[in-house]
């Protein structure tokens, strides 16, 4: 299972506890999380389902490359951190 952790600063706005889901890409993993946390989707992705401009995602310690389609591959034991980029202020 993939471990998904969200920046603690999101807790100011809504509940988003650490969770474990399955999926073969960042998109699949996030979609699995959003199935049970629907409101969270708009906080992470924009209207066109891209990663928001000032958000950043790490997979096993490396930032993802594909911020549009979220196609970066992950392994069954990956750790995903959804964080704020400092560019957002």
């Amino acid at each position, binding site marked *: 299972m993939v471990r998904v952790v969200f920046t603690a*600063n999101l807790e100011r*706005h809504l509940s988003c506890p650490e969770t474990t889901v399955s999926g073969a890409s960042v998109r699949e993993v996030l979609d699995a999380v959003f199935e049970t946390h629907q409101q969270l989707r*708009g*906080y992470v992705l*924009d*209207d066109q389902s*891209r990663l928001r401009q*000032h958000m950043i995602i790490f997979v096993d310690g490396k930032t993802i490359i594909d911020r549009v389609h979220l196609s970066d591959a992950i392994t069954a034991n990956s750790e995903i951190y959804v964080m704020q980029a400092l560019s*957002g*202020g």
Partner: protein
Amino acid sequence: MSSQIHIATRKGLFRLDRNSNGWSIGSPDFEGEHVSMMLQDYRDGTIYAALNHGHFGVKLHRSSDGGVNWEECAVPVYPEGATLGAGPFSTEAEPKPASLSEIWALEPGGVDQPNRLWCGTIPGGLFRSDDRGSSWQLIESLWDLPERQHWFGGGKDDPGIHSICVHPENSRQVVVSISCGGVWVTENDGESWRCKGDGIRADYVPPDQANDPNIQDVHRLVQSPSQPDIYWAQHHNGVFRTTDGANSWQELSGIKPSAFGFAVAVHPKQPETAWFVPAIKDECRVPVEGQFVITRTTDGGETSEILTKGLPGEHSYDIVYRHALDVDETGNCLAVGSTTGSFWISEDGGDSWQTISTNLPPIYCVRFVKT
């Protein structure tokens, strides 16, 4: 006279209450958050606050109990595949995907449309809700117009709808204004639209383009409640007014000390009376000679008077954004907030002003509570 004011700022939504000791500022809701727009719906009292989180996007909250409790409701969402036009100043060869970046206007529908809200956004979409913000629909009749592809940003990177005027006697007539995309009018509740800018001119394009209605940067558009065919427009290049429902516009050359600014407010009962907050010019956005003033005309803009009593006479760098000047239902009480966190109130139509604070966050929107 109104006794309550909301102030949307860079770091929270503040409320001012007037009691026997004068005006007092309360603790903010959404402390630390960028509140780009707010509305207290005069029809049912619901308060709406549009937040613009730097990282997490735009959110809309509403309160049905005067701000004691808030709930997050829906925001307008651009449909999958929606794009902006490349625009005349774009460096991108391809149209870029459209995504909500700011709620810039929020207005109630007519009294005959109790749950209707209109929402103007950056990057240029007009949205409508018929359930108090629980869901939103993009007004495709405006978004799909080929002219929309030529709108461009003014002060912001992308075009935005900042003014929405719902006719007080005919809610099917709505006028919106875009920076930069001119003034657009629907007579049929948004089924079709016409751009109306005859007489408005722009200095920031070549002379043969100056009168193109679709490139006009009206900074703020307000409608006279007492004579709804009269609209006042503070434009990038001056002040304009129409008395025939936006069909023709006249430039007003009598506005002193300068014609550049963002905000305009019109008297609720006297359509010839309006207030402005001038700055030097577009390339130098500070008060003229460092003196912060409010300008008032009482004759439809033929002449104006500069109001200074109680306002800073020197070393002022306060600029007032387009939504940060308001007048109450009597026309006697005015409130104005600046980019440097200063806030003033007049209770005599602008003749004199009292300083409420010089330490608030940058102010985006000031609104009296109206009934």
